[in-house]
């Protein structure tokens, strides 16, 4: 094991009330943090363990310079992770409460900042689901939990940039979160990050049995942010989870280049640990003497969590840009992603047991404590296992890999699929098992009217309702080894399928990429039905855009047709607000505020020069800071 010297002087932390952000602080100021979520936790409810540095405030995206806090390169280096080459075809599930409406766009900023590959709904990498496993309706938004969600998304991205990410949003921080965990299992999840917890109430064995199925899934659960004195937290104390503690992580001149101590920055703040009052000791914790804890002890392993040595996070819902976060809500997704880098967990195994067989591949944290207790290992670092940091932090991924060889299942399916209401669908999903075993297929959130054949993987039928679905296809072989893939499946109306996908916007936002808050479904200003696209409408400098990639017919004189309504209270020449239509980089038309009118007007653009090509259609509104100009689009189609 590697011993770590305590080099960092923990900076005092002070909890501040409310969510107001302080301005950028002088470096000598005492760091201050705020908990993202309500910390009043009644029995049967959960809270998140994200702590944001308020003394550093939020930094605008436009500010020059790197964000404060550790980024992907730091975390990968600190834990010697093979992030550049591993993780392909793995998908990490994150369970949180409430909706973060800007989760995907914030994630895009984070990944772009650090040069990580894009991860979007469009490319099939990012998926957002409700607790039932469907892409809509999503729960109500929450500013507090959005901080937690941003932290989780950014940490799994930092550690496993090639992994897919599924965010499951529970309706509330109650048993709904356990339902979301159950949904993750049903979707074939192999890695699930749980950055939240609550008091150990109820029959924990029953909860484990009901919600943490099947076995052979990595569930990483935060141990909490309020020291040993706060008591143990469920589901970290579940025998089904790997309990993740927190460290202070600092760069130094050691061989490793980093050192870690128990995170305990200030009285009342520090990683959680302890001995469960209820949960039975799992076999793999036999290394922990009964005299220390005769039940389930937490943590198992750990990673950075100290806000004083925190991580960079980009957040715009409940935030205003770059922030620095800590809490064991940081360490749980870091370790979940490290497990994903390590490969598939063995079916029916207990992934929490893996590190206990490979302690040489962990940084043993031997300094620091998170309170006073007896027996002392429950709250004080020592060689080998201790409560605050468990067995230590990862050195690469070997301690997180399944010791048993498992079959590899691979599923192949398109990331995007489009269909039309009433028209026949036949799509073959292909999956293979390295053991040459037959596989069985399952699908969730298939459009109504479609079914999947469990043995052939053929999806067929006729969709009955327009909409956008995030379909998860899971293939499982006879050994229990499984894999899944995600299809963003848009079912258009007949009207909306004329050479484009969802051209009448009656299927949600499917088929389109929007920059800004563009696609609406309230019918208020639709040409027909409920859906329409609304660009502009701001009385400040603003840009909105709407894009779809289409294949232009190779014959005839193809034309792009759409309905456009322009509205502005200032139709004078002084109003320079415009809507530009660009086809594959070519500006083909411009519309201005002077075209204001009370109704939609049909537009037609010749696409003959693009015949046979796949091109991107982009409408971009540009407004200055004077009178608002609205541009409404509906009934988009490409005709021959």
């Amino acid at each position, binding site marked *: 094991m590697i011993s770590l010297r305590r080099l960092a002087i923990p900076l005092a932390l002070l909890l501040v009330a409310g969510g107001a952000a302080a301005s950028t602080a002088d470096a000598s100021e005492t760091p201050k943090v705020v908990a993202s979520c*309500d910390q009043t936790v009644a029995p049967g409810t959960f809270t998140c363990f994200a702590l944001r540095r308020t003394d550093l405030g939020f930094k605008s995206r436009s500010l020059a310079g790197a964000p404060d806090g550790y980024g992907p390169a730091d975390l990968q280096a600190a834990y010697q992770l093979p992030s550049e080459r591993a993780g392909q075809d793995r998908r990490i599930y994150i369970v949180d409460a409430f909706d973060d409406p800007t989760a995907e766009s914030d994630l895009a900023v984070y990944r772009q900042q650090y040069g990580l590959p894009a991860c979007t709904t469009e490319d099939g990498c990012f998926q957002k689901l409700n607790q039932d496993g469907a892409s809509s309706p999503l*729960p109500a938004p*929450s500013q507090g939990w959005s901080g937690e969600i941003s932290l989780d998304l950014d940490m799994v991205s930092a550690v496993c940039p090639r992994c897919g990410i599924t965010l499951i949003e529970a309706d509330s921080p109650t048993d709904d979160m356990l339902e979301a965990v159950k949904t993750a299992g049903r979707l074939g999840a192999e890695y699930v990050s749980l950055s939240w917890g609550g008091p150990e109430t109820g029959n924990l064995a029953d909860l484990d049995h009901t919600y943490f199925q099947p076995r052979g899934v990595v569930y990483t659960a935060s141990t909490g942010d309020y020291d040993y004195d706060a008591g143990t937290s469920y589901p970290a104390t579940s025998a089904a989870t790997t309990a993740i503690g927190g460290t202070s992580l600092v760069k130094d001149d050691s061989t490793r280049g980093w050192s870690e101590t128990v995170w305990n920055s200030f009285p009342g703040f520090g990683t959680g640990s302890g001995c469960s009052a209820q949960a039975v000791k799992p076999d793999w914790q036999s290394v922990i003497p009964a005299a220390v804890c005769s039940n389930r002890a937490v943590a198992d392993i750990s990673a950075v969590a100290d806000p004083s040595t925190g991580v960079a996070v980009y957040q715009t819902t409940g935030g205003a840009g770059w922030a620095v976060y800590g809490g064991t809500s940081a360490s749980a997704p870091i370790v979940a992603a490290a497990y994903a880098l390590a490969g598939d967990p063995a079916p029916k195994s207990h992934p929490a047991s893996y590190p206990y067989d490979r302690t040489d591949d962990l940084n043993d944290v031997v300094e620091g404590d998170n309170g006073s207790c007896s027996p002392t290992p429950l709250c004080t670092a020592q060689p080998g296992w201790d409560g605050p940091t468990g067995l230590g932090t990862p050195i690469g991924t070997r301690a997180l890999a399944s010791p048993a060889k498992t079959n590899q299942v691979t599923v192949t399916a398109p990331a995007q699929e489009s269909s039309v209401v009433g028209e026949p669908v036949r799509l073959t999903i292909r999956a293979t098992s390295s053991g040459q075993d037959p596989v069985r297929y399952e699908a969730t959130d298939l459009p109504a009217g479609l079914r999947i054949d469990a043995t052939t993987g053929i999806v067929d039928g006729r969709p009955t309702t327009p909409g956008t679905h995030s379909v998860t296809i899971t293939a499982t072989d006879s050994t229990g080894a499984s894999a899944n893939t995600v299809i963003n499946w848009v079912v258009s109306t007949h009207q909306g399928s004329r050479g484009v996908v969802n051209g009448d916007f009656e299927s949600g936002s499917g088929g389109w990429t929007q920059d800004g808050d563009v696609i609406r479904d309230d019918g208020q200003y639709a040409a027909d039905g409920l859906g329409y696209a609304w660009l502009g409408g701001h009385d400040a400098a603003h840009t909105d855009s709407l894009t779809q990639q289409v294949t232009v017919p190779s014959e005839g004189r193809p034309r792009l047709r759409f309905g456009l309504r322009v509205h502005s209270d200032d139709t004078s020449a002084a109003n320079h607000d415009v809507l530009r239509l660009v086809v594959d980089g070519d500006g083909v038309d411009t519309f201005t505020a002077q075209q204001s009118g009370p109704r939609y007007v049909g537009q037609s653009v010749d696409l003959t020069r693009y015949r046979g090509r796949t091109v991107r259609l982009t409408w971009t509104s540009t407004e200055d800071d004077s009178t608002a100009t609205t541009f409404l689009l509906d009934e988009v189609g490409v005709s021959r």
Partner: protein
Amino acid sequence: MRLHSGRSLIAMAVVMGAALAAAVLTGSGHQLAAAHAAGPDQPFSPQSLVWPTSTDGYLLGGADCGLTSCPAEVLATHDGGKTWTAGGRMHHGLAKSGEPGLTSLQFADRRFGWAYDPFLEATQNGGRSWTDVPLPGGSAKVLSLLASADGTYVLTSRCALGDGVCDDRPLDVWRAAPGKVTGWQRVDVPVPATGDVRFAANGSTVYALVRYGPGPGRLFTLHRGQVRASSTITCADQEVAGIADVAANGDHRVFVLCRSFYGQGQSTKTVMVSGDGGQTFRYDAVPGRLGLADRLVVAPDGAVMMSNFTASLVYSRAALSKSWRIADNWLENGEHIHDLAFQSDTTAWLIEGDAAYNPDSRLWTTHDAGATWQLATVPTP
């Protein structure tokens, strides 16, 4: 246009406390009261205003209010507010301080209407004469009411006048057929003793939004007194949020106003919009923390306005605009603004001050969907 619904006594108490708080905040409450007291006597003090059509308006107010009594009267206009005529006197006067009395007005059309809260009076001739209507089911008081094309819906309490929540017996929702003042039938909308209901209507579809205090509410879609659908309404930041109001302006198009992170006269405001009758919503954050969100009204063309208590502000968003505006004409006075109602897509009205407490309550109007407001001449009966 949205027909404004009535207030509960609980809400009134909150509003009164809030108005006081606003006066303290602005430090001008006493000055304003003095200014009003020194002003010319006003024969008619507006209290509640409705526009069942863009040309037909009705104004409830106090006529020749004295210290001990404040007879209630309704004025009517049938030319969009150019001229007003006096109707008959009501059986009950306006509420004087600490006493029960009429506070609100609703009209289903140009003839049939109600004055209520806590009493219930009806007219079937455009306000020329009024009938004192017994409350359904032996109820003691009306807490809120909606007059719509689908009939009249009322929320009643069995607690005696002057009592707030007297026991744990649930409140009752009743419906009478259009144009009828009898034949009330109970509606299957459960409302706990500590809850209340905000109503809204679009055509013959009625929405009853049950508020339970902080946390989610329940939206019932009603037609002919039958529940056609119901759904849980969850505000943004649910753990620290409460529902303020509901409005509707089209087939299945429902708006809900929420306030969250409230305290010290401020709140974060969110307007939720649904195109499917309240099954799913989008959430539009409203910039500006000042004021506790109270009332929401929506014009047919999509223009939105909301009034606040604790800070007398009107937030508005014009049709075909995504940007919000704030009007603060009333902020320094610290008086309660209420009865915000659209007359047309662009013209709307509100009342500043409660006639029962301030004989100089004032009428305001906007002709640009809330961007600017002008003091309107109070009609002379």
